[in-house]
Structure formats: structure tokens, C-alpha cells
């Protein structure tokens, strides 16, 4: 449009900042151009007689995997390669994760080799509670961190002997919020809801339930005493997470435990 020798002129009312030579060079946009960018525009102006700078628009479509997701995928491959099923157990503090695992190691763990990685902010109390001669356990203390991440799992998994282990339980830090965002590379995400909590917990903390493969309704032996309505809780879980299997159990009385063991057995495949 302009003769090669004439510098391009700019319309009076140009739109906001764009990487177009005309607007970029002279709009007086509120955004100052950095020196290298101005130099680049000037160079392009000189090279392009009609004052147009082509903007190359490229559809890149790159998924942004944060560091944790990359490490989680690595863990998943590692676990898969070793032929072990990894379960990430998540719940509020005190929902019964450790008690469930104690009984599971004593019963299911007798015939199928299991290991546990257990996370807490402080103390190795849970690690000691879960310690069994037949099941390797590693305690992860997170300090101030409110969840386990894939890097912690990778390191802790290296610290125990996984030979022959078919089921790896990862007992997450008691927290219904943050662990939802951190994939650990598990095969199955298990969310526990105890009868000492409200039936509406799934509605109040939906992301963690949304991502669950299995929901365990725990401490069902005291449901009646507490006036906890199991059917309401089950319906709430079903509304948020219809994909999840639900097992009602009590690690104290043993009710529902065979169903939990059958679930674990199915994960390990034919022996």
C-alpha cells in the first residue's frame, strides 16, 4: 500500500497494543515497548516496505504438566513395571485410615505381600503402629506440608524393599482438600468417610470425592449410636462420584472387610 520509500503512517485512532508494525511503532500505547522489541519492530519495518509485520500464529496445544504430574506418571510406570497395585488413601484426620490398614495388614497382608508409605506432618506414630515383620513400612514426615506429593512417594518407595510386594498402600496426610490436587501415581484413589463425620461431607468437599475410584464408609459399627444416616451418605457420595465403588465397613468389628479384601485381591490379579 505504501511506496517502498515512504515510511508507514499510522491511523489516528489505532486499537490497543498489537504486534503489528504500525500500531506497535507509533500508537503511544500505554504499554511501553521494551528496547529489544522496539528494535525488532524497527528491523522488521525496514525489511518490509509496506509496513506490515506478519504475526505468526501457531496452534501449539501443549499440555502443561506440572512437575508433580510428571513425577506421578513416572511413579505409575514404576509401580506398573513392578506389578504392584498402589492405592492412595485419603480422608479427614481421624477417619480411620491407620486402623483400617492395621487390620488389613494382619489379615489380607498375611497371604498377599503388602507395603505401606504413611504420611503425617510430624511423628512416626503411625509408622510404628503399622510396623509388621511381614510388611515394609516407611513413614514420611512432611513438616508443614498438608499433603503427600509424587516426589515424596518416589523417594520413600526407594527406601523400602518392594520385592514381592503386590499391594502398596499410601496413607496420605489427613486432609480432604489439598491431596485432591496431587496425583501420586496411584492406580486407585480411595477416599474414606467415617460415620463420625457429617453425611454431607461429599457435598462440602466435592473435588476429592469426584476423583475417587473407591469410597469406604468407615466406622459403620457406631453409625446408629451417632444417628448417622448411612443411606443419606451413600446417596451423597453417589451424586458426586457415581463412578466410585462404595464399601461400608468397620475395621473394629470386621463388618464389610471381606468385600474390601476382595477388591484388593481383584487388583492384584490372578495369583
Amino acid at each position: 500500500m505504501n511506496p517502498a520509500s515512504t515510511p508507514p503512517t499510522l491511523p489516528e485512532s489505532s486499537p490497543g497494543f498489537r504486534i503489528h508494525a504500525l500500531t506497535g511503532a507509533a500508537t503511544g500505547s500505554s504499554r511501553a515497548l521494551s528496547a529489544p522489541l522496539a528494535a525488532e519492530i524497527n528491523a522488521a519495518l525496514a525489511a518490509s516496505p509496506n509496513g506490515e509485520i506478519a504475526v505468526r500464529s501457531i496452534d501449539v496445544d501443549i499440555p502443561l504438566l506440572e512437575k508433580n504430574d510428571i513425577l506421578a506418571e513416572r511413579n505409575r510406570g514404576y509401580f506398573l513395571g513392578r506389578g504392584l497395585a498402589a492405592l492412595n488413601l485419603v480422608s479427614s484426620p481421624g477417619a480411620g485410615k491407620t486402623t483400617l490398614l492395621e487390620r488389613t495388614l494382619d489379615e489380607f497382608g498375611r497371604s498377599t505381600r503388602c507395603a505401606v508409605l504413611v504420611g503425617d506432618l510430624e511423628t512416626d506414630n503411625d509408622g510404628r503402629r503399622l510396623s509388621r515383620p511381614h510388611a515394609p513400612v516407611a513413614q514420611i514426615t512432611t513438616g508443614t506440608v498438608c499433603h503427600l506429593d509424587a516426589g515424596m512417594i518416589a523417594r520413600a518407595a526407594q527406601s523400602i524393599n518392594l520385592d514381592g510386594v503386590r499391594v502398596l498402600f499410601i496413607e496420605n496426610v489427613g486432609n480432604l482438600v489439598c491431596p485432591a490436587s496431587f496425583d501420586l501415581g496411584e492406580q486407585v484413589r480411595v477416599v474414606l468417610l467415617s460415620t463420625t463425620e457429617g453425611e454431607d461431607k461429599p457435598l462440602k468437599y466435592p473435588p476429592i470425592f469426584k476423583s475417587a475410584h473407591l469410597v469406604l464408609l468407615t466406622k459403620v459399627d457406631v453409625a446408629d449410636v451417632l444417628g448417622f444416616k448411612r443411606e443419606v451418605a451413600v446417596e451423597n457420595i453417589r451424586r458426586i462420584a457415581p463412578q466410585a465403588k462404595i464399601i461400608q465397613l468397620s475395621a473394629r468389628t470386621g463388618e464389610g472387610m471381606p468385600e474390601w479384601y476382595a477388591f484388593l485381591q481383584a487388583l492384584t490379579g490372578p495369583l
Partner: protein
Amino acid sequence: MESALDAIRHQAVKHGATRVSRIVLRIGALAGVDPDALRFAYEALAPTSIAAGAELEIESVPARARCAACGTEFGVDRGFIFRCPRCGEYSGDIRAGRELGIARLEFPSP
């Protein structure tokens, strides 16, 4: 955001560009990313990166789910209860909304 800027730098090098003029991110409603927080991080990190001076556009993707009972695919406006508008069943089959990535980049031609 840092990993996004790394990826952008990588793409710029690949396309022989030294500057980026526009960045379009695609973020699903269920990605767990708050667009305001993302913008804040961008404004803090971009000026000292390859994205200095670039415009950031955020393209949101609404959640979509598929009903396992009747096969209807439907959009979800808000929340985490995905209920089929046709048959009333709840769905856990998320078809869209988890996106988190760089959709498009614009480079000024050298």
C-alpha cells in the same frame, strides 16, 4: 506458570523467534486452576522472561459430562454434581473441563 514459560521459551526457539507477542492458555473448569491466580503469577514472572510484553489470553473450557445410562453428553455450569438433563442420572464420566495447556502462541516475524 514457570513450566508454561519454559514451554513457551522452548517453542520460541523451535520457531526461531526471540519474542512472543501473544499467549493463549486453555483452562478447563475442573483443572483446579484459578484464572486470577494464574494471571497474577504471569504478571510477576513474564517481564523477566521470553514473554515480556506479550498479551495473555485465557480461554476457559466449561465442564462436560456423559451420562452412562442414556449416553447424553451435557454441559455443567457449576459445581461437582453432574446430573443428566435428560434422564436425571448422575455422571462421573468427565468429557471436558480438565484441560490445562498452551493453546496458541503468536510470534512477531523476524
